[in-house]
């Protein structure tokens, strides 16, 4: 079996935003529309402002709340775990926005539908990596197969990310590390 997931290694992430822009480029997203972006960790979690990030899009949950609550069945889940949203079926009721604790579905007001990360399933089916993963210059963002790859050193619910075992988000995390800092007196 295959169970695809994103792995987000905040120790390696350099905050370059290439992942988010690669996504916009791949799908020609409307201005203002962002499927993946960097979330800076608050200073309680990492001691320096704007210096550690989680790159997040859809977490392709095993128990997707978006899918469960969608009245029109716009969401489907593939056997490999990818949660796919169909914009043509979506009527823009935004119930999924109320149900996704990770803020993944985005409402496109002009189009009247919700959009979200598709894990680039067409690319995966062609043997390619998702656009964001291919873009990551430091391998901080990777595609893993939870049924095959060893993810024992990763965390499923790190600080800065909602603890929602009821949804079983598939994303795995490695936490950031702060350097020793020598400041001068001013």
């Amino acid at each position, binding site marked *: 079996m295959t169970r695809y997931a994103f792995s987000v290694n905040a120790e390696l992430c350099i905050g370059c935003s290439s992942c988010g822009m690669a996504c916009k480029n791949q799908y*020609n997203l409307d201005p203002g529309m962002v499927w993946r972006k960097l979330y800076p960790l608050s200073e309680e979690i990492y001691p320096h402002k704007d*210096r550690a990030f989680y790159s997040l899009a859809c977490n392709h949950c095993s128990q997707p709340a978006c899918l469960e609550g969608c009245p029109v069945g716009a969401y489907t889940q593939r056997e490999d775990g990818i949660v796919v949203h169909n914009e043509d079926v979506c009527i823009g009721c935004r119930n999924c926005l109320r149900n996704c604790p990770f803020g993944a579905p985005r409402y496109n007001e002009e189009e009247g539908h919700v959009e979200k990360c598709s894990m680039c399933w067409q690319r995966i089916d062609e043997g390619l990596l998702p656009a964001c993963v291919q873009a990551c*210059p430091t391998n901080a963002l990777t595609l893993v197969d939870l049924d095959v790859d060893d993810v024992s050193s990763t965390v499923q619910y790190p600080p800065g990310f909602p603890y929602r075992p009821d949804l079983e988000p598939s994303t795995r995390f490695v936490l950031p590390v702060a350097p020793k800092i020598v400041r001068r007196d001013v």
Partner: protein
Amino acid sequence: MQEKHGSGNKNIQQTLGNKVSRRDFLKMMTAVGAIAALPGNGLLRRGPGASVMPSTGYEGKDAYQVFHNACPRNCYDTCGMLSYVKDGVLKFVEGDPASTFTRGGLCVKGYSYPRSVYSPDRIKYPMKQEGRGTGNWVRISWDEALDTIAKKILELKEQDGSLLGLGMTKYSGNFGITHYGVEGMMSSLGYTTRFVGTPCWPAGIDAQNFDMGNMWCNDPEDMVHSKYIIIWGANPSINSIHSMKYINEAKRRGAKVLVIDPIFTQTAAKANEYWQIKPGADGALALGMARHLLDKKLEDKAWLEENGEGYSEFASYLRREITVDWAAEQSGIPAERIKQITEEFASVKPATIWLGYGLQRHTNGGAMVRAIDAFVAMTGNIGKVGGGARYGHLFTWGFNYNALVQSAPEGSIGYTGVTGPMGEFDTGQGGNAATYTDRAFNINKIAQEILDAKEPPVRMLYVANKNVLSQDFDRNKIIEAFKKLDLIVVADLFFNPTVEQADIVLPTTTLFEDWTVNVSYWHYWMSINEQAIAPMYETKSDIEIASALSAKINSLKAGSCTFPENIDPKEMMIKEFNDGIYSLFGINSWEDLKNGAHKAKLVSSASWSDNKFGTPSGKYEFKSAIAEEYGHSALVKYKEPREAYASYRLLTPHSMYGLHSQFQNLDWMLDYNPEPLAYIHPKLAREKGLVDGDTVRVYNKTGEVQLKVSVNDIVPADTILMYEAWYGQNNPFNVNILVDDESSDMGKYKTGAPGVAIHDQFAEIEKA
């Protein structure tokens, strides 16, 4: 599983909104025959060919034509790219997977490229402005534009007897090799006034030339072998993102990484240790570290004996004048840390230092680079795989510069004074024995040079690949200087503050509409840039403009220009290649690059691996006679930093969302970085009564800007940080309003003019 997915599943019904549904529409496609096209305003009878289908989202890799391109921006990474084209329209871009350096990735800027190609705001036609700055533009034909330009050139020649009244300024808007055709266009007209040098990295170039006889860095990919890495004044996390994986890998293999920077950068956050150095004190710190090597007898004596010219004199200078405590005091780094790290660095091999371009943008920048080079040399890490004092290289730039190398028309009169090289990429012109040369003005003092120019004054300025009003220094003075000019011609992609001051604007092609070839000044890969789409509107590439101008001016007065009058951009690109390039890269033909980027076949990933240096002595020169010839200390020595002229240090480094004035103006970039910010430390914020989001005035003797503050301890309390950026039409923000044109110490030797002390600036800050 639904059939399709992705953004913009806007079907025909939705976008065209007709009663006819998508299916009916498609049915119609087979049903309706052609109508006879009439000789009207536009549409023609369509010839045979495949029907065109609208596309939605990602359609699978087979749906696209794929071209190889190369990002030509002034950047370490110079990424090979793939562009995906359907029905002649660029759909999306990717990194070239053939390059191990970029590994199929681009950066946040690279991925925004389709937005610039298809921005409705591109400059589309040649236009002239009736009254500079009035905004009263009329469309003119290429013929009329070139006619106006040509006639002005002929007039200058007539009046002055030479073309020195014609000035040209160009820098790094597009580093594609064929873009040297802009310089070629000038040469082919005669001897002109050139703004030479570089605002970027000249002090460091000279420093490394004094020390080693060239600027030549190791292959960045060999940093994985480093056991100790100091990143000194560089921020690859935003400026060379593809280098970070090698640093990470070295770290994973046990290397220690130290970042030395006035700012706690994203790169610093990834290090083992970060030192918040006082700007301008890098030389003092390096000399202190060198002194500690002596104290602990950690220098590589064998290497120094064999390869170090003037080393003993340098060692006695260190013993005489430098102490670790003094270095600690100057730099703000505790002596204990200096000592420990120095010992750690010297105890492993290979160890390397990456010297960023930031640290040499000071009045003592070249001297500081020499001090750091010296420290690396003393540890015996020069010429070692995984070692080296890495700064940059031009090792792979040995093209023909076919478009550049043009002879002046017969009988041309030029400048008779002494000139040096015309920029860092100029390998041949400096010091040759020609009767006449171009007149060289310092590119970094464009305003002052225009204001001071006499016999003849500069009366016409040609600007290409450059946004002078946004990127050059002391903007207010530039506006004054421009008033002296009769004709300003700007060739560009977008309407920017320089175009606003132009008399004529010429529309240029994007990289996807042009043929060229690109290499990096950091890694060792070469990428071809194929024409992926037809040039939009009436845009032309720089060399097409040169050739059209040549035809025009020769038609007005035969023999006025030697630039070939009929060129094919692809042929011009092919002419850039030579056997040297082919053998360096191990390819048989430029066509090999159509399969992906190629890397130079290096004898060693290390520069100077044979210890044969390019200096007069053939050794590493701690004491350089050439340095002395150019007015510097022959011996590597401490040089005092610039005196502060206002209360706070002002640092204006590169932004990750733009490259100089490119990219940040695109709407996608505004989604990520909507407005400029001044970063200040919480302590300074408290003193000034400022909180996040307050609007402030930042001002100094050169000018004033207003922007919001972000309170953040990534900056020291005596420093204001503002990233460089041009935000586009409606945001007047520009950090260079606050940067004066004070020169850095070095640059004249190899680039023709010194650099600019961009980071030796100071300012006041107040709540607006």
